[in-house]
């Protein structure tokens, strides 16, 4: 330590947030008397411009070289004050914040208690600030490319924006085609644009863009590194079809021996496909894929004399010897756009979804009304043996949403509107049907939503306020057992067709991506953003961003908006070409490190590796920290038996005096 510490202490009123339960003047007066404290002041809003000027002025006039700000959580304003003192020529890491708001004024009711605790917190910060070391902020180069995982509308939009800005994009999609759930929708609320018409051009653009490398039927296997420098490894699953030779003519599928026998995922199992297939006519890329789980040749080793597809393919594209391939590349940022799963209606057995073919989900309804769907857009159901047009149709909202009995407390945000949309589409096709929607609330919050809801009601769609409890069958009718809560009348409503407005759930397979990128889940189990308001597309892993339903249920407009936001955020490091790395990282004292590697296993960010060094003529193993990966969490330091690894700014020699100054808290 070169110069003697000269500490300035600034106690914030935070309007009345702090000053109503903490006597701020008393705290400043108390601080003034502590060792090395040169100045102690209070101010109404320290974070405001005049508040910052106050500190800068004192630094100039009083020669302060250490600053303590007693205000809110460092999560809020640490960067603000670091910047302010750096501007006045003090190393930005010569700052300590005492959180006398969240940890003090907001949790105490009595001013005496609040003030006493604030004094302790301030004296602890003063004890530590005197012992801090000056740190340097470093920068490393950033790779001007991005990885986008998932090619639904979110992933496609994000990829297009980044590519249009001139950066390389790797767009990885798990299934054989891009498009995601939106590709399955018929028309979209509230404007009733045909989903395929607005989506297909974007799908094609994404595939043809010179800056986008589309890796369909692929999965990310490994991501190493850190913001600006991620090393990615992707598995391209074998399609058993030569990608370059396949012309997409479809002769193979029409000849396949299991043609029309395999439930089509795209048609929600209502339509059938072959073992070699294109998921849907507009699929991108328009290349066929063999479903290894259903292909006779691949499952049994034999398909007639020779596999039919091989026989008929004029391009000679079928290749049963094909194996998975791996590609590796480097990117500066990652966008997770893996989307959602529709709620599985079997989990509400009271609705009889598993028992009754005429109880269908909203996703199935989308396919049923679609002109390209399994019925060519005709709404037909079986009434016993006979095929009929349903006369009595009920739609039920909030199936699997807002429902703690299935563990989903959240609102799925799209069902109110898609159910209204489907009622409209049904009305279009069945002018004489009696259509009712069972609801508990109508959440028509988006642009044009309320107007759409108004329109649908006037198309003679009855809204009955009550969430049904049960569905069972009586003769050929489905009985919806409910209560009309507006007139307190229990009902047994006999209908022909029930549409369950299933909600949106986190993907069942999200764990893989979570582990790859060290992401967390919010209480609703969707991916957790870094801050719900101020960093809604960022994650706790620098350089990794979220877009679309992976982060929470949303409609297409919100999905696209978020995708554009994620793209813009991801482009910051790409455009700068450099990233700043955290200065408060762990360092190893190589002279005392025993090489046990405990820390290597404990580090949640895989930031530590073992290296061989020469110690007095002996080759020994010691730990070394990759400063770009280290988050300064200190887990290593807690595990180290010889106290050889310590996070800067949180060394034992700095935090033990801080703790000591707290004394015993009452």
């Amino acid at each position: 330590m070169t110069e003697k510490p000269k500490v300035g202490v600034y106690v914030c009123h935070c309007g009345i947030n702090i000053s109503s339960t903490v006597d701020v003047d008393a705290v400043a007066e108390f601080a003034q008397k502590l060792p090395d404290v040169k100045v102690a002041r209070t101010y109404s809003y320290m974070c405001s411009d005049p508040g910052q000027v106050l500190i800068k002025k004192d630094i100039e006039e009083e020669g302060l070289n250490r600053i303590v700000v007693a205000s809110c959580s460092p999560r809020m304003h640490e960067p603000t004050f670091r910047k302010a003192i750096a501007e006045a020529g003090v190393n930005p890491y010569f700052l300590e914040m005492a959180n006398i708001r969240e940890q003090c004024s907001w949790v105490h009711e009595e001013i005496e208690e609040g003030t006493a605790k604030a004094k302790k917190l301030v004296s602890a910060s003063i004890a530590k600030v005197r012992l801090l070391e000056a740190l340097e902020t470093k920068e490393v180069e950033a790779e001007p490319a991005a990885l986008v995982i998932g090619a639904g509308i979110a992933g496609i939009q994000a990829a297009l924006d980044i590519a249009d800005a001139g950066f390389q994009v790797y767009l990885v999609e798990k299934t054989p085609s891009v498009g995601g759930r939106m590709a399955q929708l018929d028309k979209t609320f509230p404007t009733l644009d045909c989903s395929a018409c607005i989506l297909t051009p974007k799908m094609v653009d994404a595939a043809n863009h010179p800056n986008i490398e589309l890796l369909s039927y692929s999965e990310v296997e490994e991501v190493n590194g850190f913001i600006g420098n991620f090393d990615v490894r992707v598995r391209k699953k074998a399609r058993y079809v030569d990608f370059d030779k396949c012309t997409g003519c479809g002769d193979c599928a029409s000849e396949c021996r299991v043609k029309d026998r395999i439930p089509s995922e795209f048609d929600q199992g209502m339509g059938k496909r072959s073992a070699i297939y294109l998921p849907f006519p507009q699929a991108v890329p328009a290349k066929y894929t063999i479903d290894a789980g259903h292909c006779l040749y691949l499952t049994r080793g034999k398909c007639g004399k020779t596999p039919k597809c091989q026989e008929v393919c004029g391009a000679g594209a079928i290749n049963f010897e094909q194996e998975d391939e791996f590609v590796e590349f480097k990117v500066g940022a990652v966008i997770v756009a893996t989307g959602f799963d529709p709620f599985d209606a079997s989990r509400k057995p009271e609705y009889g979804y598993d028992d009754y073919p005429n109880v269908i989900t909203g996703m199935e309804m989308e396919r049923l009304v679609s002109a390209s769907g399994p019925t060519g857009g005709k709404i037909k159901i079986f009434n016993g043996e006979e095929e009929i047009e349903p006369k009595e149709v009920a739609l039920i909202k909030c199936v699997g949403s807002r429902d703690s009995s299935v563990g989903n407390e959240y609102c799925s945000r799209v069902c109110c509107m898609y159910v209204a949309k489907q009622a409209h589409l049904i009305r279009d096709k069945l002018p004489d049907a009696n259509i009712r929607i069972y609801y508990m609330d109508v959440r028509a919050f988006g642009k044009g939503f309320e107007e759409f809801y108004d329109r649908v009601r006037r198309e003679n769609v009855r809204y009955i306020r009550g969430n049904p409890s049960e569905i069972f069958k009586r003769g050929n009718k489905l009985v919806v057992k409910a209560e009309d809560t507006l007139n307190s009348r229990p009902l047994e409503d006999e209908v022909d067709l029930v549409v369950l407005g299933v909600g949106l759930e986190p993907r069942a397979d999200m764990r893989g991506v979570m582990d790859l990128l060290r992401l967390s889940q919010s209480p609703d189990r969707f991916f957790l953003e870094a801050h719900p308001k101020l960093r809604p597309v960022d994650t706790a892993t620098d350089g990794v961003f979220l877009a679309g339903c992976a982060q929470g249920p949303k409609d297409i407009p919100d999905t696209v908006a978020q995708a554009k936001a994620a793209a813009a955020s991801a482009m910051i490091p790409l455009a700068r070409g450099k990233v700043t790395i955290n200065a408060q990282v762990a360092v190893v004292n190589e002279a005392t490190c025993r090489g046990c590697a405990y820390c290597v296993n404990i580090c949640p960010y895989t930031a530590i590796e073992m290296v061989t060094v020469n110690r007095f003529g002996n080759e020994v193993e010691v730990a070394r920290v990759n400063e770009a990966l280290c988050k300064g969490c200190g887990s290593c330091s807690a595990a180290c038996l010889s106290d050889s690894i310590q996070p800067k700014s949180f060394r034992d020699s700095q935090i033990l005096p801080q703790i000591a100054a707290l004394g015993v808290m009452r």
Partner: protein
Amino acid sequence: MLMSSEIQTFTEKYDLLGCIQCGRCTGGCPVTVRANLNVRQFVNDAYDEDKLEELARLAEIWDCTACHTCAVRCPKGLKPLEVLIGLRTMIVESGKVEPTVRDALQSVLLEGNPWEKSRATRLDWMEDLDVKIADPDEPVENLFFVCCTIAYDPRVRAIARNMVELLNKAGVDYAFLPEDESCCGSEVFTLGEEGLFEMQVEDSTEFLNEYQAGRIVTLSPHCFTTYKTHYPDLKSPVIHYTQLLVELLNNGKLTWKGELPKKIVYHDPCYLGKQGNIYDEPRELLKSIPGVELLEFERRRERSLCCEGGGGKMWVESESKKERLSETRIKDARALGADVVAVACPFCVLTLEDSMKGLGLEEEMRVVEIMELLGELMEK
């Protein structure tokens, strides 16, 4: 969260403010087709403390069968039926209850059963049987708790008697509780005698914890669910007998003599299915009988129709003249062409059989508890 020591208001106790008035409770309530009960309306109206007494005087609070459909369906975790029970409590505390209810509660307090039978005769059902009686000093894997109704009502006694024979034959490590065994309080709870129920929970927990049981095996789903949900301090896990029998079945320890060429339909008791989540075991047992053709009701499993036997309905007659649910059930079974309606609950036997007789179907049909049937098929 309030500490239990603080006095809760009615609204806090039943989390009335958690309700979003969605109507799933009333929508699912089976008795709405014959009684005037609208449980959601009660959840809504009970918020007004000044109205509670008036609400408690409404006759329909006694129509609830405690099937718990409302609670299972509620998306916000409320137990709407407990609002009705809370209102019943107000009536019970004021002493203005039906004499039948008063006598049943009195009997629980004095004799440990609601059937006005003497405690001294609790073990009479064991007559002529070789039964192992539990001893606190001896560890036992399966400690049996016999329901009051099974112990005293000759119609369903066979459940326990056949069980003993089956256990002896299969060589199971078991013991039955001695005569100081007391009512689980299922019906005391639903009749609203809160104080008595609290006492029962305390006393029975202490009594049962004296034994070193691997698990407690209950014969009635009412005891099963009551122990599981209202006895947090029991040392041993609680199971229903059908779970134990399926274990024995899978270990090859149960064999049946001859065939039973009958069409059997199984009725899911609310306390075992909806509340206890046990749907498969009783069906597996029935399917294990050679010759049996197992039928299913349209309204089965999670959608089973209540028989109206619970919720204290054994002691409170409904005023409704409309068809009883147990009658609907028997008619449905008849339409399916069932020879036998099998259940796994003593209350369901009593209500369904009553309706079956009322409909004059004694010749064509039979209502049995699974244990009765298995007893007849056991190789002795």
